[in-house]
């Protein structure tokens, strides 16, 4: 098919074409330039920062999931020596506005501190500001609150029924939103297909769980009226005026300073509550205030629980295994608030049919509110869930047909000559060679060997199983997925830019300024250093990287949705192109050469074929700053450029939403294959082999990409095998610490082999595609498949996660 690009879409301004084979630095496994400061313990995370006269805040959490606050007595807490101020919902009501929300639903109001009613266990009901954290926590215990406990709304299916208690009375119901999208002729395809499978599936609530919780320091300067907030998150610099709105201050008086974070995985994606809270506390007490979530608070109060979904899913197919149609019906338990609307389902619609040729899709969603901590973002943003659904359906279809699980997938793969490929929803897959990735993983994994191994082991009574799964990895979201659910959205943004500025100092030093979140475990500085080295032929370790605060930031969206490497590379390439143009003009003038004869080499610029005719970047920069009369006559002084790079390939949905447009078009592809041995007595799952091959377009740095793949895979393993928030029948979280909420340890995880295929994107700088979420897209599906295969003597069909050891033992015992 042909793609018509919006003439307003960003053009790649770099000199290097996508997939250019002549890349010098992009593609090299250089060591991360971020590492040394972290290895020395000099990371300067949020809790490492101390301001003069700084106070500390701790919150009083609700012990109830749903209750009316009848009275709060803060007098004993206020009397404790060292306590500066105790604030409650009444103070929020008087001095602040509700928190921002993209739910576009005025009936769902979320405040920094609960006003009149708490809607989930762990919700903040009061805050203490004190001289230190110990005193603040002591004082929280002295706050006396009288509650009228209300029936907790916990089951999303019952929550939809007439007469259910309401989470938000102003909404008048608990089903915040529902819609069915239909693409193609779904009913007809199901009627005409020879076969279909229907499966009920459950995906449990878990969370990204970074080691560094969310935190911020507010620092109000009464003299200037500027409120500075140091925070370990800064996404969407063009939406930060919303935070100023909550705080009732002019947006020009708000300055957010991004601080490195010890991990996010979604839990710091547009993290607004914690910085807003710290800023508000500083406004209220007139001194700097630090607020850092402790682990329990992070678990029960961080606004970023992952998806919690019940599905009925159906796949129609022919006797030969050809897929025809997909029908998905989902009830999603969003918890007490709805900050991103139903964007996590918009996301899933970008790759709902996976790598397979399925032309007919129906997708129904009911977004239900309950008395639980609200959903936010978690690595995959909902697409990891839909991939599990799809791959489970494929395994069930293979089982139904008695067909090999690799062959049924291969039969339905989109072929390499079909790109760019328009999916039924309207989203585009830009490029790919899926059979190529499959062949590569089969060769690495040695599938036939392991099939024989499994069969032989089974004869000996051992429980060995194989899992094979494929996945798409959509990268670089545009903003339409948040609102195309609505026919007439109240607010329909279409931008998701990223910016970069380059300055070359008189010494020749290249300084790059980035304009969103500082590093949070990704490698923005390494990526940018490699791009700069590519463009200017300088040593990547020589580049200095800084981060703009929000008062100086150009539009930046930040990491998330596997977008950052693609977008920041485009931004740097754009700023570099402008910089190189200026340098060439200065050099051509000075060297009396044609601009076209110049090249960037050895940290400078010179005439091609003339090694002695060269100027260093310092020579150029000195002229640009000090020697105006050496510059071309129409040129101004200085050597700084900036570039804001917009999403290069996005379109609007159509009016009736039969075509959602292009909103997530740079699509990677991966296959994982694994062999496990299950001990039915203990439920332990041991890995005998784990092989992965990914295609993320042009690879910038194989070593760091491998790190993202392994880390994502293991995070998905946690989802598959260990992690789930357990709520009791009163809505209390029973596993609110690491003793009872288990993350994968070094003993629980495989040693993987990783291969890469590189199919560049035709639409991005250098052909890069995003890859940060890829691993987690596959592990839930592969563990389901492998454990199910291992337990096939017991006839087990895995339809819910996590696959706990207790569950495995129960299956083996025939329970």
């Amino acid at each position, binding site marked *: 098919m042909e793609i018509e690009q919006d003439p307003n879409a960003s053009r790649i301004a770099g000199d290097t074409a996508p997939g250019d084979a002549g890349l010098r630095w992009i593609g090299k496994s250089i*060591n*991360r330039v*971020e*590492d*040394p400061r*972290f*290895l*020395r*313990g*000099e*990371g*300067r*995370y949020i*809790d*490492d920062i101390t301001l003069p006269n700084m106070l500390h805040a701790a919150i009083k959490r609700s012990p109830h999931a749903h209750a009316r606050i009848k009275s709060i007595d803060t007098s004993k807490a206020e009397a*404790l*020596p060292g306590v500066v101020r105790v604030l409650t919902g009444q103070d929020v009501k008087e001095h602040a506005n509700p928190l921002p929300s993209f739910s576009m639903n005025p009936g769902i109001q979320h405040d920094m501190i609960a006003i009149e009613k708490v809607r989930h266990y762990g919700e903040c009901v009061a805050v203490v500001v004190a001289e230190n954290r*110990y005193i603040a926590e*002591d004082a929280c215990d002295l706050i006396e609150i009288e509650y009228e406990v209300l029936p907790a709304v916990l089951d999303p299916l019952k929550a939809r029924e007439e007469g259910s208690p309401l989470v938000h009375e102003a909404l008048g119901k608990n089903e915040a939103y529902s819609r069915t999208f239909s693409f193609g002729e779904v009913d007809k395809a199901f009627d005409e297909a020879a076969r279909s499978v229907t499966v009920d599936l459950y995906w449990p609530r878990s969370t*990204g*769980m*970074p*080691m*560094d*919780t969310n935190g911020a320091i507010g620092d109000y300067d009464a003299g200037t009226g500027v409120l500075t907030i140091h925070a370990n998150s800064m996404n969407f610099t063009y939406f930060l005026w919303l935070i100023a709105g909550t705080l009732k201050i002019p947006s020009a008086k708000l300055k957010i300073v991004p601080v*490195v*974070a*010890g*991990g996010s*995985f979604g839990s710091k994606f547009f993290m607004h509550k914690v910085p807003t809270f710290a800023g508000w506390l500083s406004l209220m007490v007139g001194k700097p205030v630090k607020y850092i979530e*402790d*682990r329990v608070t992070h678990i029960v109060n961080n606004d970023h629980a992952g998806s919690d979904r019940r599905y009925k899913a159906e796949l129609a197919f022919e006797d030969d295994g050809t897929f025809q149609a997909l029908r998905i019906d989902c009830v999603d338990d969003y918890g007490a608030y709805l900050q991103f609307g139903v964007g996590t389902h918009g996301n899933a619609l970008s790759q709902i049919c996976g790598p397979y040729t399925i032309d007919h899709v129906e997708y129904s969603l009911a977004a239900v509110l309950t008395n639980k901590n609200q959903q936010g973002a978690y690595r995959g943003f909902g697409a990891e869930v839909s991939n599990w659904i799809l791959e489970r359906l494929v395994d069930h279809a293979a089982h139904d047909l008695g067909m090999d699980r690799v062959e049924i997938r291969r039969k339905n793969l989109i072929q390499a000559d079909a790109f760019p490929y328009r999916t039924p929803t309207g989203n585009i897959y830009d490029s790919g060679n899926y059979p190529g990735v499959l062949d590569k993983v089969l060769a690495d994994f040695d599938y036939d060997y392991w099939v024989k191994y499994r069969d032989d082991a089974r004869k000996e009574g051992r429980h060995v199983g194989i899992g094979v799964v494929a996945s798409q990895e959509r990268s670089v979201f545009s903003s339409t997925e948040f609102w195309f659910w609505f026919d007439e959205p109240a607010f329909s943004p279409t931008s998701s830019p990223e910016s970069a500025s380059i300055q070359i100092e008189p010494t020749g030093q290249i300084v790059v300024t980035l304009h969103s979140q500082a*590093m*949070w*475990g*990704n*490698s923005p500085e390494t990526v940018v250093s490699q791009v700069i080295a590519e463009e200017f032929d300088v040593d990547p370790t020589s580049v200095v990287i800084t981060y703009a605060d929000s008062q100086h930031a150009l539009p930046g969206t930040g990491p998330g949705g596997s977008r950052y490497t693609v977008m920041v590379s485009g931004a740097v390439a754009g700023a570099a192109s402008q910089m190189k143009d200026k340098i060439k003009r200065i050099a051509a003038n000075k060297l009396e050469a044609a601009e076209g004869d110049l090249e960037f080499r050895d940290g400078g610029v010179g005439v091609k074929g003339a090694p002695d005719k060269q100027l260093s970047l310092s020579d150029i920069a000195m002229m640009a700053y000090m020697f105006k009369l050496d510059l071309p006559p129409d040129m101004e002084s200085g050597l700084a450029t900036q570039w804001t790079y917009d999403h290069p390939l996005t379109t609007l949905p159509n009016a009736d939403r039969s075509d959602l447009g292009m909103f997530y078009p740079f699509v990677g592809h991966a296959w994982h294959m694994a062999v496990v041995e299950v001990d039915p007595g203990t439920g332990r799952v041991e890995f005998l082999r784990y092989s992965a091959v990914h295609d993320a377009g042009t690879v910038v740095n194989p*070593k*760091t990409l*491998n*790190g*993202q793949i*392994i*880390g*994502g*895979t*293991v*995070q998905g393993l946690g989802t598959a095998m260990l992690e789930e928030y357990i709520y009791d029948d009163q809505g209390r979280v029973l596993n609110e*610490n*690491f*003793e009872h909420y288990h*993350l*994968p*340890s*070094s*003993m629980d*995880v495989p*040693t*993987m082999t990783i291969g890469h295929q590189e199919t560049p994107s035709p639409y991005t700088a250098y052909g890069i595609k995003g890859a940060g979420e890829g*691993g987690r897209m596959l592990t839930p599906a592969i563990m389901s498949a492998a454990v199910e295969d291992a337990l096939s003597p017991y006839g087990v069909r895995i339809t819910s996660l996590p696959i706990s050891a207790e569950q495995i033992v129960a299956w083996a015992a025939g329970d």
Partner: protein
Amino acid sequence: MSTIENQLVTVTVNGRTYERAVEPRKALSDFLREDLELTGTHVACEHGFCGVCNILLDGQTVRSCLLFAVQVDGASIETVESLAAPDGTLNALQQAFNDNAGLQCGYCTPGMLMTAKEYLDANPDGGTDDQIREAISGVLCRCTGYQQIVESIRAAASAGKGA
């Protein structure tokens, strides 16, 4: 709430001896971070389960969040700040982590490094991968999936042998 008098603690940290008056209830992790301004040691659960706050107390790893500062009176402590040379040059273990992508966000890294140091001091040849995995199993990392940490520790052992 009655006021409890501060107690005097004398402790050697990274070769330097400090004398400080501290509240008896102050956690060692907070003492290191706040009183001694050694913020390289991080806390992630304050509960003894994640190992991110691991330090060496008289040569053995301990959870610094589970000790009170007053308990280390007279002891010798090593934290992540002890590893690099005074000019900032990384030691062999730190360099191996840099070379092998043994960190991403870096938050667990101090606990991981001190745990790896204890292991390598006892097992200079590096042992098996299973032994390395067991040695670091008490430190949780959410970024790496551990594989490149294991490779880093193995590489550090190899570098040590070559030296």
